[in-house]
C-alpha cells in the first residue's frame, strides 16, 4: 500500500528503481571480477597523460566509487613536472612582408654580475 502511495505522487516505480540499482551493482560486480582490466586501464591512462606531463607512475591510484546513482572512476595521478610550453612550430621563411605573428626574441644572456 505504501508503494502505491509513492507511485501516486509521481515517484519512480519499484521496478525502475530495481533496474537502475541492478545496472549499477552489476557494473561494480564486473569490475571487481576483472582486476586485469583495471590494470590495463590504469596503464593506458598513464601512457596518455604522460604525453602531456610527466607523472610518478608508481604512485598512480585508480579507484571506483559508487554514489547512489552513478559509478565514477577516480584517478589520482601525481604530476612530477610540466614542461615549459614550447612555441608553436614556425612556417618556412617567406619573401614579402614579414608575418604579422609576433615573435618573441630570446633575451640576451645575462652576465654573471647582474644575474641573481
Amino acid at each position, binding site marked *: 500500500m505504501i*508503494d502505491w502511495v509513492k507511485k501516486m505522487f509521481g515517484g519512480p516505480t519499484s521496478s525502475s528503481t530495481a533496474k537502475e540499482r541492478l545496472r549499477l551493482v552489476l557494473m561494480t560486480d564486473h569490475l571487481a571480477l576483472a582486476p586485469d582490466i583495471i590494470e590495463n586501464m590504469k596503464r593506458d591512462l598513464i601512457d596518455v597523460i604522460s604525453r602531456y606531463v610527466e607523472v610518478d607512475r608508481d604512485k598512480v591510484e585508480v579507484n571506483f566509487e559508487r554514489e547512489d546513482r552513478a559509478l565514477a572512476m577516480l584517478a589520482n595521478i601525481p604530476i612530477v613536472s610540466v614542461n615549459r610550453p614550447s612555441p608553436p612550430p614556425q612556417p618556412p621563411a617567406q619573401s614579402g612582408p614579414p608575418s604579422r605573428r609576433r615573435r618573441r626574441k630570446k633575451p640576451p644572456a645575462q652576465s654573471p654580475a647582474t644575474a641573481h
Partner: protein
Amino acid sequence: MHQPVPHEVATPAAKLGRAIVVTSGKGGVGKTTTTANLGTALAQRGARVALIDADVGLRNLDIVLGLESRVKYHLLDVLEDKVSLDEALVPDKHSETLVLLAAAQSREKDEVDTEKMRALVQGLRERFDYVLIDCPAGIELGFKNAIVGADEAIVVCTPEVSAVRDVDRVVGLLGNRFKPQLIINRLRPALVKKGKMLSVEDVNAILRLPLLGVIADEPEIIITTNRGEPLALRHEGETANAYHAIAARVAGENVPAPSPELKESLMGKLGSIFGGKRA
C-alpha cells in the same frame, strides 16, 4: 612502596551477544530476506545487530538492504587483515543500530579460513547483541563456514516437498550443537485450504522443530527488495508484523504461536490491508 595505578579499571564482563545462523539447504526459500528483516526488526527494538553475508561469490544481503552502493570492503578483506572490521562494517540506511558485513563478490567460498571466521564471529559477539549469519544455499563449504561461529540456528522452509526434504538433511548436518528453530516462509493459506500446498502442520509433522514463525507469501516482498527497503521497517501489514513477532520471540518474549487457521480467515486478496493483529 606506593602501588602503581593500574592503567585499566576492570569492567564487569559484558554479556556476549547471540550468534544465529539462518540456513535452509534449499535455495530461494527466503534466508536472505529473513536475515535482513529479522535483523531490521531486532534493531528497531533497539538491539545492536550485526549481519554477516556468508554467501561469498553470490552476495545479496547488501542489495536486499539497499546498501549495495555503500559496500567498500568485505568479509575476506577483514579475514585477510587487509582492513579493520570497523572499516568494513556498513551502517544500515534505515536502522541506527544495524550494521552489515558484506560478502566478497569476486572471490570463492573456499578462500574463507574457517578458524578466522569463527574468531570474527566471536569478536562481533563481544560488541553486538545479535550476530545474524546469512548462510548460502547448499551444504558445501559455504554452509560449513557459515555455521562455524554460530551457537544458534534458524532454519527457513517453504511448504514444498523439496524444501522440507532439504531442511531435514540440513538439520541432520547441524548436529547436536544446535537446537534449530523453524520459520515457515511463503505460505499461501488459500492453496493450503484447497489441499494444493502443505500446511504448517504437515511441515511440522515431518520436521518436528520448534516453530518460530510463519510468513505468508506477499508480493510486497518483491517490491521492497526492488527498492532495498526491508518490509520490517513498517509496523503495519501482516508480513511486517510477522517479522516483529519473530524478533520478539527471538528476544525471549512469549508471543503466542502463529495460528494458521486465524491466518487463513484473514488472508485473501486484501490481506495486507487488515494489518497484522497476530502473526
